[in-house]
């Protein structure tokens, strides 16, 4: 991870000349990494990928490849493999001809090209399908072929735009593994777009979380999950409990926050302003303790159990805490039996380091407090 492979420098994009779909994007992608752009639908992910592939031009800013600007390089000269959500195979060509297409264009000698095609098909476990027509393949098989076609010509970069979005969950998980394995084998740089946080979490080296055309946070999956820097990231990446409060006292490392019902919380001061301003507290459901020991847990509250949901490996306890009507506690389903019933009152709590005080989640005028 030394010199960036791809750089976005102050890239902006507007389709209509008024609204910015991508705002001042700065992003370095390193050689060989699996970088995922994750965000809700409409956040500008595809637009970013289209600009990188050259299908759309940036309104301003620069995209660099190996330090050289590629703003004026046509898509067919970029040597990037692109995989789309709806497969985009050529329906009037067999699987074999689909894979031969990029090789023919590059005038690779025939014998060599055949070898490459077969190697690429083997790589996606589709060795026996060379003579099929795309319409004779299932969705998952078509996408495997599309992946093979995107890597058969040893591209500089592989771009994928929600490639598994149209597949069912089981197939999706299988292809996630296969794609990840291809990445490990080839060591080529991947830029992957998805709106599925599980996909981003399991596949990526780094994830850029996008919202409204702005990168909210760029980090490894574990640090995004453990240390979200703002309320959007905490909400979007993994499950989260959100509490809205007002900063009472900023102690540097930690702070005291008052909730709407008057109770107080001791939290990590991550992204807050001066005392008196609003803040969002983020607590992961599995970090909430039942009947905590008051010595190492300054935050203890009595809540009423509303509902228990059984999830096999864990159990979710739905409670309401302050104005959050669905405060969730996850406890793992191990030998310690959960004996709790809806309607009971229990004590819950969390450690200071598991509760992060972040920016106010919604716009100033709308929020309570």
């Amino acid at each position, binding site marked *: 991870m030394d010199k960036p492979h791809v750089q976005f420098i102050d890239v902006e994009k507007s389709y209509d000349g008024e609204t910015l779909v991508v705002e001042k994007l700065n992003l370095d992608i390193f050689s060989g990494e699996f970088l995922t752009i994750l965000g809700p639908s409409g956040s500008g992910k595809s637009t970013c990928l289209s600009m990188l*592939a*050259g*299908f759309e031009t940036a309104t301003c800013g620069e995209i660099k490849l190996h330090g050289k600007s590629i703003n004026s390089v*046509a*898509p*067919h*000269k*970029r*040597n*990037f*493999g*692109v995989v*789309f959500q*709806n497969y*985009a*195979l*050529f*329906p*009037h060509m067999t699987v074999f001809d689909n894979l031969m*297409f*990029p090789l023919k*264009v*590059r005038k690779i000698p025939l014998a060599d090209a055949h070898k490459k095609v077969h190697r690429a098909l083997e790589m996606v476990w589709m060795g026996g399908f060379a003579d099929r*027509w*795309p*319409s*004779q393949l299932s969705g998952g098989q078509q996408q495997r072929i*599309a992946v093979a*076609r*995107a890597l058969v*010509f040893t591209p500089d970069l592989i*771009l994928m735009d929600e490639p598994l979005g149209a597949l069912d969950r089981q197939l999706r998980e299988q292809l996630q593994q296969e794609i990840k394995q291809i990445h490990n084998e080839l060591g080529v740089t991947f830029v992957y777009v998805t709106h599925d946080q599980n996909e981003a979490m399991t596949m990526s080296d780094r994830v850029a979380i996008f919202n409204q055309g702005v990168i909210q946070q760029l980090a490894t999956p574990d640090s995004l999950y453990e240390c979200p820097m703002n309320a959007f990231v905490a909400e979007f990446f993994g499950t989260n409990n959100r509490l809205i409060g007002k900063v009472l006292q900023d102690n540097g490392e930690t702070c005291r926050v008052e909730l709407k019902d008057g109770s107080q919380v001791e939290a990590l001061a991550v992204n807050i302003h001066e005392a008196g301003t609003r803040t969002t507290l983020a607590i992961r459901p599995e970090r909430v303790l039942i009947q905590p020991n008051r010595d190492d847990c300054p935050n203890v509250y009595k809540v009423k159990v509303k509902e228990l949901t059984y999830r096999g490996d864990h159990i979710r306890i739905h409670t309401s805490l302050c104005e959050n009507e669905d405060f969730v506690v996850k406890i793992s389903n191990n030998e310690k039996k959960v004996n709790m019933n809806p309607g009971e009152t229990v004590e819950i709590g969390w450690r200071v380091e598991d509760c992060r005080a972040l920016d106010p989640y919604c716009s100033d005028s709308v929020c309570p407090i």
Partner: protein
Amino acid sequence: MWQLSPHTTLLGKLWRCTFLVFCGAVFMFLVLPVLIVLPLSFNSEPYFNYPMPGFSWRWYQNIVENEMWMVSAKNSIIVGLASTALAVTLGTLAALGLSKPSLPLKKLIVGILISPMIVPLVITGVGMYIFYAKYNLTGNLPGIIIAHTVIGTPFVLISVTAALAGFNLNIARAGQSLGATPTYVFFKITMPLIMPGIIYGGLLAFTSSLDELVVVMFLAGVEERTIPMQMWTGLREQLSPSVLAAATILVILLVGLLLAAELLRRRRERYFVSAK
């Protein structure tokens, strides 16, 4: 389709009756006249009524031996093929350009391009006559070819636009990302996939040229007469079943072309569209 489901209501049955009556009426007024008239071209006597006294090829022979019919056939074919080639090229290019979402004034351009379909042919004909005369495009084939190109282009534009609407833009993008120039992508990917639309548009343009009479009457001299014009004069001067013989040949030719296109489409579909 013909079977009524057991829970059809009275209203449903009435509706079905109306539907069948309507179909019958369409058949009677649209198809029957053609079917009745065509056999008369084999009449051994120069009359237009049944029962026919005998069968003969004489009217077909008449056409082949008559120089005027042969000249008009040649003209029709030249004009038809040339104007179709031009209409297909221009119509396809126009449809491609108009499929770009960012194009300004799109509706206006489409309106102008398809106006020959909407404006009565007489008006188009008068306008062309006045305008083309200035550029020496009356009384010669190039003038008629240009006129028929104008008339045929909207058919191609509309059918190719429809074909492009079902075309996934990402397929062309995939082609580019794989290293093909836009031109290569067009000829190897886009064009084969919208080919049914191009062929249908071309067939419609060709048939419209083949039986277009009004504009030809304005622009053609004796030397440039086409089959419809020859039929028209034939009908006015001496009414003979030769006209019917020519019409029969045209009908068979056009039906044959449409069938061929349909077969072509089915064969392509068997390969790569249906299967699923």
